[in-house]
């Protein structure tokens, strides 16, 4: 297996909820070592796509391959330790401290306390979380801190693939900008394969080497931000780009 082969592949995957086609038959590669951004308006299917990739839901048809092996109900649990997932609002368990949240799975796997502690401090430094915060409960943390702890939890087992579902959605602009910079730095340091969901094009441009734009349960375009702006595959792409008024094309490094 070479580094260039996709870490995750969707082959003709589809999902319906009753009469509602959440995802039309979709084929998509997630590149190894790159950040792939899923973007689109609400209800476009990006969350369904993410949950299919994580194996939280099973497709009606088609296959999801992780490193060329099909994900099945039998192997999904083992595979999950190789994937990290940062839930939308942090998804921290309110009855556990930050340290307990982060160390939960490692403890379950029987890691020694010392090893857990070492990893906790390593990750704490990486995500710039004050050590004192590790002893706090989610109710005692700020929104930004919760996201940092959520990221630590996802990274605890050093996964090969990291998923983030709108990680910055609920944060105020200052915290958001700071965390955005930190996340970009972390992705760069770790050189991990990342899948990030957002509805904000500026954020997609900021993080994404590959941007996947969805509309009504299908992929409209997959490409770089420059591709989306200069070579839109569909009038919807242009509409979507133009609708994000605060998006500064110059700042994103694209000369139109």
């Amino acid at each position, binding site marked *: 297996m070479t580094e260039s082969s996709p870490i995750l592949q969707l082959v003709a995957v589809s999902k319906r909820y009753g009469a509602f086609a959440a995802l039309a038959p979709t084929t998509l590669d997630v590149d190894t070592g790159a950040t792939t951004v899923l973007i689109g308006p609400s209800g476009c299917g990006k969350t369904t796509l993410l*949950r299919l990739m*994580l194996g*939280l839901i099973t497709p009606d048809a088609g296959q999801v391959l992780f490193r060329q092996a099909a994900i099945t109900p039998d192997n999904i*649990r*083992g*595979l*999950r*330790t190789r*994937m990290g*997932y940062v*839930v*939308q*609002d942090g*998804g*921290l*368990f*309110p*009855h*556990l*401290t930050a340290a*307990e949240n982060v*160390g*939960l*799975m490692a*403890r*379950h796997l029987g890691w020694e306390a010392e090893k857990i502690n070492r990893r906790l401090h390593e990750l704490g430094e990486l995500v710039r979380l004050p050590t004192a915060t590790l002893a706090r*409960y*989610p*109710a*005692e943390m700020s929104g930004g801190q919760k996201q940092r702890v959520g990221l630590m*939890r996802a990274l605890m087992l050093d996964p090969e693939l990291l998923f983030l579902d709108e990680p910055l959605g609920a944060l105020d602009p200052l915290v958001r900008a700071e965390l955005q910079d930190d996340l970009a730095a972390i992705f760069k340091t770790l050189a991990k394969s990342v899948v990030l969901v957002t509805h904000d094009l500026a954020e997609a441009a900021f993080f994404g080497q590959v941007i996947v734009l969805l509309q009504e349960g299908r992929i409209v375009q997959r490409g770089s931000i420059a591709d989306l702006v200069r070579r839109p595959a569909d009038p919807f792409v242009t509409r979507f780009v133009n609708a994000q008024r605060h998006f500064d094309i110059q700042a994103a490094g694209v000369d139109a």
Partner: protein
Amino acid sequence: MTGSTSRATRLSMLAACAAVALIAGAPPALAETSAARPVRVGSKAFTESVILGEIATQSLRAAGLEAEHRSGFGGTRLVWDALLRGAIDVYPEYTGTLIQEILSDAPGAENPTADWLEKTLAAHGVGVIGPLGFNNSYAVGVRQDLAARLGLQTISDLRAHPELRFGFSNEFMSRRDGWPALRGRYGLPQTDVKGIDHDLGYRGIASGAIDAMDLYVTDPEIKRYGLRALVDDRQVFPRYDAVLLYRLDLAARADGALGALRRLTGRIDAPAMAAMNARAKLDRVPETKIAADFLQQNLGLAIAAPSQPGIAGAILRRAIEHLQLVALSLLAAIAVAVPLGIFAARRPRAGQLVLGAVGIVQTIPSLALLVFMIPLLGIGALPAMVALFFYSLLPIVRNTHAGLTNIPASLREAAEALGLPRGAILRRIDLPLASPLILAGIKSAAVINVGTATLGALIGAGGFGQPIFTGIRLDDVGLILQGAVPASLLALLVQGLFELIERRVVPRGLRLRGEA
């Protein structure tokens, strides 16, 4: 995390262990062999029955037999069933009740003779001793002043006053020789007719809340409250000769028991019975003492006066009985209801059935549920505990279900995405998150149980209900308070205890919510 998760696990383990112990402990109690146990005398929940039961018990003891008295059964059907099932061996009954109520469906009941009665009872494995010497028929009582004002002498005179309010004991209301026969034979027009506890009826008539009530002619309250017993001019009420019923197998089991009981035949006349009732209800003399005095004066039997425990001792003993009822039933309910709640939350369709079923159990009136237990489990603490167990299920199942289904989907997804297996998610995430609601369910079950357990006294389970019901029977407010006050205190105590447990079991992180 050690704290929160394993605490929840420990709690459920503890409950499971207690339930196993309870179940393991049950069979010996059920299988108690009849040969080894003392003769059990039963009686109904009114003073005369209790005195007669006590006299029978002490007569047996005087003959050198071991005997115990289970007093205060909540109704004729209850005590009759207990006799047929062998939960008791002997109890005092009245011929009128036998013919009109218990055996009314047997062929020949329209024209009963002593011979018919004996044969019909024998078919049930029951023998009869007596008559004891008095006829305690029903009567209809009104206040003397009202009788004088309206000129009431006979029951027929009531026809002219449809506005009168009647309050009859619940049993009298439904017995075919009671209110239905009275209304039919006399053509009584009154429509304001309520069912009321017999002893409370006296208070009602004294305070003017009702105008007429059913009486037993040996009731001492007739004199005490200045009532007039109206003449039964159409002879609706049959004879109510007091007798003793016994199981026919008693002769083989307890040598000399029947001989001891037969000595009572014809020895208790109506004035003697009324005097004994008056001593119990008006002078507050304990039934044991009244029975002992009677046997000494009339049969020359010397009965050692049983030692009466002091008030503190009595309250302590009842507290232990009461706590046992509540604690064991609650622990068993936790062990069953929490898994049921988990199941209901995981399988929504089957879960609706479970929730519906425990909901239906809850709608059965508590007294009825207690009575249902008697054919299955006899009398005493076990059937009461089982009934309380059923009552505790709903709040715990419902809250466990609600606690689990209220967990945000995103948290369950986060747990699943971590790769935790189902069992670990349940233990480390779901149960701790649901623990506040589960605990609240257990708390409300416990508090309800403390109250409902008082009814256990009606089927011989003891507890704080014993003084309450005896107090109602004897019109003794002090005695009622001896049960009611500690029962209320116990409920408060249980409430407080659970607030302490909450502090230990509910994870700190959950209690912080709302503060932040």
